[in-house]
């Protein structure tokens, strides 16, 4: 447990992906089974057990430490788990304390030192132990662990373990032990169970590749590269490509198969392989095939695609109620097929997969699954025209839910990952507004010495006249040279400091205008302005523009209004228009 805790500790401080990867690899290579397997489970969200309540932790520590001193400490540190970890008497690093009177009875010197628990012991005990025994186990472990170990244990048992590592990165590190790509690990992942002994045996070359026991496994998706400007297309021959709409939804995978008893297995996966079937019973119900479809999750009402705003109200809901299913009906617009009728189709070129996809969707004949239509074209100019005005190019009423076009090479197989060349995404032109820099914060990693995160605002009529109100935050879009200038600007125009944040001078007469590009606007209860941008970035620095001429919040509200022309739940088409 201590080793795992120290890994978490290092990861929590390490901002660089490659360095995290190195730390993970180092840990997996040097830690035996099943300890490393449970660690992998902890990092990929694969642990389930009864969580301990903060009140329980507090009670344990107050049995051992003067409550006044604990309260002062908690106040200072600001985190219950960390305060407890730091203040816990005993522990392996304890010196001979003069404050013996504060120690709990039973911690006397006659008892042998408790043995340091393994992560395996912790996880297995938590999974099986009755609630009333939890305090006893916890205090025994806390006595045996060092400070970092106690911290990690408390974060783990209270369900607050934030690792700073994605499941994908952990899998990448495991794969790298045997020179495998993360995708190879993904392929076998859903057949495996913690603590993953078979997985480690395989990547270390000690055993065969584990048979996937999952009849409906996740298949890592194929990703695209962006078309930055029209000239990028000059190198590509239009006749070698197919075009389709890029939908503004969430990429999902529908997988079906039959288990050994011949029962249908239905799975909905997110694009990273997360099993989200339980959140989408309405989609799962449609998975009556043996195979895998790649498509976009959308909300359709009366046959019309709703805005991303609406989709968001369906996502991330813990409870899937009948009302939610009714008001936010999920739909998949399919654009590729990886397997059908038990056959892996990923080796086929797109031109052959597409008819298989069309046949499958037709055969399914399900209201929740339809086909993403192709966009016919002969030249790149025609694609550009469709991209600029999807409504006139066949998308009709759904045009607002389109964020660009996808170009797919006809002869390309389905390649997991992001191969350069076969798939291109060409997004619509972003929206832009001119906003005024209001606050700046230091960045991370390589940028940690620079003020690189900017909060910017637009004008509105306030109680006391014209005022700037924050509308968003951006931290990229500029070059390193521009960053140096912005950083200097922030330092030279600071008016207030709030911890790591600086307020810069802004007003009618003073302030720096940033041109912000973004993909859309959502309602926000968090921002004072009531709106939040999607993917905002600095597209230009307007050193020349007076702050008084920056845009008004109403510009954003108009964009928001456009996106909200969706059909209200339960309303008829006529009523909504």
């Amino acid at each position: 447990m201590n080793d795992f805790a120290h890994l978490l500790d290092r990861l929590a401080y390490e901002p660089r992906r490659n360095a995290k990867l190195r730390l993970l690899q180092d840990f997996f290579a040097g830690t035996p089974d099943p300890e490393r397997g449970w660690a992998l489970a902890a990092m990929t969200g694969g642990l389930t057990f009864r969580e301990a309540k903060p009140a329980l932790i507090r009670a344990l520590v107050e049995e051992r430490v003067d409550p006044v001193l604990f309260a002062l400490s908690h106040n200072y540190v600001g985190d219950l788990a960390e305060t407890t970890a730091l203040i816990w008497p005993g522990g392996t690093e304890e010196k001979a304390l003069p404050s013996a009177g504060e120690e709990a009875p039973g911690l006397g010197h006659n008892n042998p030192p408790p043995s340091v628990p393994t992560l395996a012991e912790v996880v297995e005990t938590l999974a099986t132990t009755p609630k009333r025994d939890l305090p006893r186990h916890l205090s025994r472990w806390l006595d045996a662990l060092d400070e970092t170990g106690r911290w990690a244990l408390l974060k783990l048992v209270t369900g607050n373990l934030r690792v700073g590592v994605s499941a994908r990165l952990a899998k990448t590190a495991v794969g790298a032990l045997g020179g495998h790509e993360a995708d190879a690990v993904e392929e076998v992942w859903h057949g495996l169970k913690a603590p993953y002994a078979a997985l480690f045996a395989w990547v270390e070359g000690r055993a065969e590749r584990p048979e996937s026991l999952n009849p409906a496994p996740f298949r890592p998706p194929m990703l695209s590269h962006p078309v930055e400007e029209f000239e990028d297309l000059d190198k590509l021959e239009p006749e070698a490509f197919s075009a389709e709409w890029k939908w503004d939804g969430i990429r999902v995978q529908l997988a079906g198969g039959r288990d050994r008893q011949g029962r249908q297995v239905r799975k909905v996966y997110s694009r990273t392989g997360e099993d989200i079937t339980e959140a989408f019973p309405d989609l799962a119900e449609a998975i009556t095939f043996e195979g895998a479809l790649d498509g976009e999750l959308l909300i359709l009402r009366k046959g019309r695609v709703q805005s991303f705003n609406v989709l968001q109200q369906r996502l991330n809901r813990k409870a899937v109620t009948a009302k939610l299913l009714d008001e936010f009906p999920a739909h998949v617009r399919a654009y590729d097929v990886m397997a059908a009728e038990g056959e892996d189709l990923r080796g086929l070129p797109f031109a052959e997969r597409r008819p298989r996809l069309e046949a499958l969707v037709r055969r399914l004949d399900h209201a929740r699954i339809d086909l993403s239509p192709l966009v016919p074209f002969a030249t790149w100019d025609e694609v550009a025209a469709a991209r600029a005005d999807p409504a006139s190019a066949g998308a009709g009423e759904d045009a607002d839910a389109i964020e660009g076009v996808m170009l797919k090479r006809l002869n390309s197989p389905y390649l997991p990952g992001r191969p350069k060349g076969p798939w291109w995404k060409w997004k619509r032109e972003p929206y832009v507004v001119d906003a005024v820099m209001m606050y700046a914060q230091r960045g991370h990693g390589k940028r940690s010495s620079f003020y690189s995160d900017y909060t910017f605002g637009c004008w509105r009529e306030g109680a006391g006249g014209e005022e700037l109100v924050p509308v968003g935050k951006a931290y990229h879009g500029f070059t390193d040279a521009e960053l140096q200038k912005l950083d200097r600007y922030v330092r030279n125009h600071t008016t207030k400091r709030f911890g790591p944040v600086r307020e810069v001078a802004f007003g009618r007469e003073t302030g720096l205008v940033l041109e912000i590009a973004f993909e859309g606007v959502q309602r926000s209860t968090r921002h004072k302005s009531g709106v939040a941008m999607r993917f905002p970035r600095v597209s230009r620095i307007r050193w020349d523009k007076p702050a008084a001429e920056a845009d008004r919040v109403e510009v954003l509200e108009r964009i928001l209004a456009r996106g909200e022309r969706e059909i209200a739940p339960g309303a008829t088409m006529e009523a909504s228009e």
Partner: protein
Amino acid sequence: MGDARPISRPMSQSASDLLTLTREGLYCPLGRFHVDPTRPVERALITHGHADHARAGHGQVLATPETLRIMAVRYGEDFCATRQEARLGERMRIGDVTVFFAPAGHVLGSAQIAIERAGQRIVVSGDYKRAADPTCLPFEVVPCDVFITEATFGLPVFRHPDTRGEVRKLLDSVALFPERAHIVGAYALGKAQRVMALLREEGWDRPIHLHGAMEKLTELYKREGVPLGETPKVVAADRKTLHGAIVLCPPSSIQDLWSRKFPDPVTAFASGWMRVRARARQKGVELPLVISDHSDWPDLCRTILDTNAEEVWVTHGQEDALVHWCGTRGIRAKPLHLLGYGDDGEAEPDPGQDLGQDPGQDPRMEEASA
């Protein structure tokens, strides 16, 4: 000074006759001198060379020979009108009181100052630690009636780990990332040299590269007989070639452009504050090293008991918790709100650093220097 404690004293004399608080800091009316005054005074007794305790511009300064030399290096030879060396343990008559210095274990030359009159003894500990430090003499317990303690780490969450483990963390990171430079923020006086000595103890025999601001004091330590090995000054143009190097710089430089020119730098910081994660994060530290020149909580408590003091005055730091703890032990205690010392410890501006360059650093964090 290991003599038995005097037993009798006139009932009329109280501790405040020996020591009181003035605008300039602690003042002894019977001896007509200040201890670690924060403004220029006639006569100053200085516990150690950190900038918040040792300031320039006093008339007469009494301090250990090492502290006097440190002050001369930092402020120039004319840092005061006249200076007088205090030899450890040697009793000196000043006005109506007797004074002696005893080692405090904080940094090279650091001392506690004992003030006696008519059988009563007050000890001003200055900053002190009980942990081993290869660069200075260990703390000596001086029994006393009133003990004035610092409380930089005066909360029970502060228990400094074994320094060896912390240095190993640094060396393990160098082994794991041999292509990256490791930039270690450390205070120019004391902490930097202690980290160097600890690295040598752990077998690091390659050069330890120094920021310019550390050079003079490190040379002074070497002259005082502390072996620190090869410590070249970083040449700006060579920074990008220092793969796998360990580089020491003042804390304010770890986030500077200066440190960004090293190959993919790992940012480390050697400080007792690194015990608290939020503190480390605020500073953008990637490799926190919990190495402190102050006493941690158990050592603060232990030292109070060791001195047998009836009364404890608690200065700069987390006074409340220590005062409360004294109460639970039946020891009279009060906070002494000294102005001018770092709220969080040694407020030590880095000499040689242009402080005007980055006024925006959270001031609390600038001071969080222990």
